[in-house]
């Protein structure tokens, strides 16, 4: 067991897979010699050579398009998009090609690739370094969508994603690359080394895709969250003293509805949280599923906390980010109704 940041855990996952499977290949912008702008691939080129880990031109559709061609032949590309905000030139290759290759060729060609990308806000990145585009991928049949909330999960989920037979969108909440975040930008920063989930085995292990994790047992209200917002929810629940059950979804598609259903059936109340803009966000899907599965158990309207329906701002970041105040208000509303 070692202490790792999320960056180190992701690197360790790629290291393990590059080491145990010659079909695994890693590439992207600044990924090779330099090791990525967030350093997730640092040292991998030196270790595995540039035929396995290399730099690409600044062309996201080329990155994913090459990966589709390689994956179709049986390789397992794990590619990096520098920021999720830059994935859109590759949206065609991901949603119209990678996602459907198995189906449209009736299994003649498949696409076991992973597209990693830093997602979310909290770093004063403005509108082109802060977005949370998960719902643009969960809307696409044929994709799996993963978003870890800590180093241990990041490694286990990334290994599972690389080993998965289908294309996986792997969203990495960049705000928590180096430590959990309670939602207060002026609060003391905590490193992953001070958090139990910063204990990460050096060796191979995987966490199955499609399985949520219950971060806090509780009986009063179910909180559905993922990525950075898991930690903000935990801190808020701590502050308010509400006995919430916090579910870290980990995989958005396919969704672990069993865990969600069991929890809401127990609590009868539900709050859904995400950073992404509200309208047609993944929260809408969660609310629909909970309503359908748990309608007779619900004792209050399901509450939703999300980013405002405006482009992600630079200076007003902490007014935009759905922080502890808004989450506390939603929890109270769910409890009072």
């Amino acid at each position, binding site marked *: 067991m070692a202490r790792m940041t999320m960056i180190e855990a992701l690197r360790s996952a790629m290291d393990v897979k590059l080491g145990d*499977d*010659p*079909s695994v*290949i890693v590439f992207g*912008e*600044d990924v*090779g*010699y*330099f090791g990525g*702008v967030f350093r997730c691939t640092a040292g991998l080129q030196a270790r*595995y*050579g*540039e*035929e*396995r880990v*290399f*730099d*690409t*031109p*600044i*062309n996201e*559709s*080329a990155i994913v398009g090459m990966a589709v061609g390689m994956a179709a*032949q*049986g*390789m*397992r590309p794990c590619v990096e998009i520098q920021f999720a*905000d*830059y994935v*859109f*030139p590759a949206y065609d290759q991901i949603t119209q090609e990678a996602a459907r290759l198995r189906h449209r060729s009736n299994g003649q060609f498949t696409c076991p690739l992973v597209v990693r990308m830093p997602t979310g806000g909290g770093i*004063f*990145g*403005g*509108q*082109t*370094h802060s977005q949370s585009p998960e719902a643009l991928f969960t809307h696409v049949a044929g994709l799996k969508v993963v978003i870890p909330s800590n180093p241990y999960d990041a490694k286990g989920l990334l290994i599972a994603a690389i080993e998965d037979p289908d294309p996986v969108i792997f969203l990495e909440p960049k705000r928590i690359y180096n430590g959990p975040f309670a939602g207060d930008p002026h609060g003391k920063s905590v490193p992953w080394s001070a958090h139990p989930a910063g204990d990460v085995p050096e060796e191979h292990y995987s966490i199955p895709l499609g399985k949520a994790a219950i971060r806090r047992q509780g009986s009063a209200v179910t909180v559905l969250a993922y990525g950075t917002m898991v930690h903000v929810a935990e801190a808020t629940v701590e502050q308010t003293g509400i006995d919430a059950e916090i579910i870290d979804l980990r995989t958005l598609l396919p969704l672990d509805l069993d865990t969600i259903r069991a929890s809401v059936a127990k609590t009868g109340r539900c709050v859904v949280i995400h950073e992404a803009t*509200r*309208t047609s966000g993944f929260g809408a899907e969660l609310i629909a599923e909970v309503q359908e599965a748990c309608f007779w158990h619900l004792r209050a309207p399901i509450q939703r906390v999300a980013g*405002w*329906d*405006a*482009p992600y*701002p*630079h*200076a*007003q970041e902490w*007014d*935009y980010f759905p922080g502890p105040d808004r989450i506390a208000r939603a929890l109270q509303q769910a409890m009072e109704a």
Partner: protein
Amino acid sequence: MADISSTPQDSGSSSRRDETATMSSRQGTRARLQFPHPPARPDQKADFSAIVVPEAGILPVPPLDIDASGCRELAVGMVRVLDKNNRPVGPWADYLGDLSADRLRLGLRDMLKMRAIDRRMLNAQRQGKTSFYLQCTGEEAIGCCFQRELSQGDMNFPTYRQQTLLVAADYPLEQLMGQLYSNELDPLKGRQLPIMHSARDYGFFSISGNLGTQYVQAVGWAMAAALTGTGKIAAGWIGDGATASNDFHSALLTASVYMPPVVLNVVNNQWAISTYTGIAAGKSETYAARALGYGIPALRVDGNDYLAVMAVSRWAIERARQGHGPVLIEWFTYRAAAHSTSDDPSAYRPRDEARAWPLGDPIDRLKAHLIARGDWSEERHVQAEAEILDEVTAVQKAVEAHGTFVDPQPISPAEIFLNVYADMPEHLRRQRQEMGY
């Protein structure tokens, strides 16, 4: 190292494996991929020996209506005007004619001002007064000079490293710095990351952080100018790294098809963050030569030679304005500073690489030319640098009084709901109320 041509372990039957074996024995050798490398890494000595620097003054000035087929020597060569003695030579010098000392001193002043702003703002970011900054050190001649050749109403579609265009357009420093501090002087109301300016009245299109997108938009702007008969032109800007983007190729294609009045600039500063320019260039001879395949005339220019920049800018802008269609200019230069305040270039290139750059520094070269003309001196230069730094610092202090990240005077959060749409829809009104405004 794994053999990537071998059959991956989890796929395929033994029969497919046999087939692979047969194929490879029939074909003999395995194809090897190319992975371009920079000439030197951090532990090595800077090495630009592969860069051919042609003599100044040897390339001709083509007719304004030249087509791509006549441009090859200009696209693979390099237009240079200042010779070793800092004197203008050759056809492009003749094309410029007699330049006034005031015009050249204006250019020097623009570049000194730009460098002073970069230094002050880098420092401000280091002090935590703003979240981010990005310098253009070494590339000052290109934007500073090109802008001075444009006319009111022409529109640049810049990247985030063309703050030079704003400086040479005499964009008020209060607004430029207000944007960098996201304070109440920010014309963009804190919405954009520092350096992502927008200044319509100064011919500066809104910057996107998504690379390459502006290049084809410049073509569209130029098409609209032609369709509506404004007589104005557009100028697209892109870095060497982002020539890899789809939109670079979209721009060249559409410019070639519709022949709009657009000047397409490629600032080849050799580095895209940590990525060496060869990763964007591949086997292309030059970025300029790439345009010839699209049927677009192209020139490669010494971007650190202020007079070469002036001559070719003037020629290209005139060509576009007279209706001869698009032209691409590759400005050959070097990114002397880090990519941004988030970057540490010592991790991927030699520390002394900027000093080894064979085309020198644009400010030093124009200064030397002015001195050679007898229109400048070391003393005047030192004095001008100090005056400009004082002037920039004075504005900076005044702007900082309106708020910095250290001493914030926040713009109203409700601002984020304005200008999402022309008319605020009901759901945004509700959200603004929920926010408390």
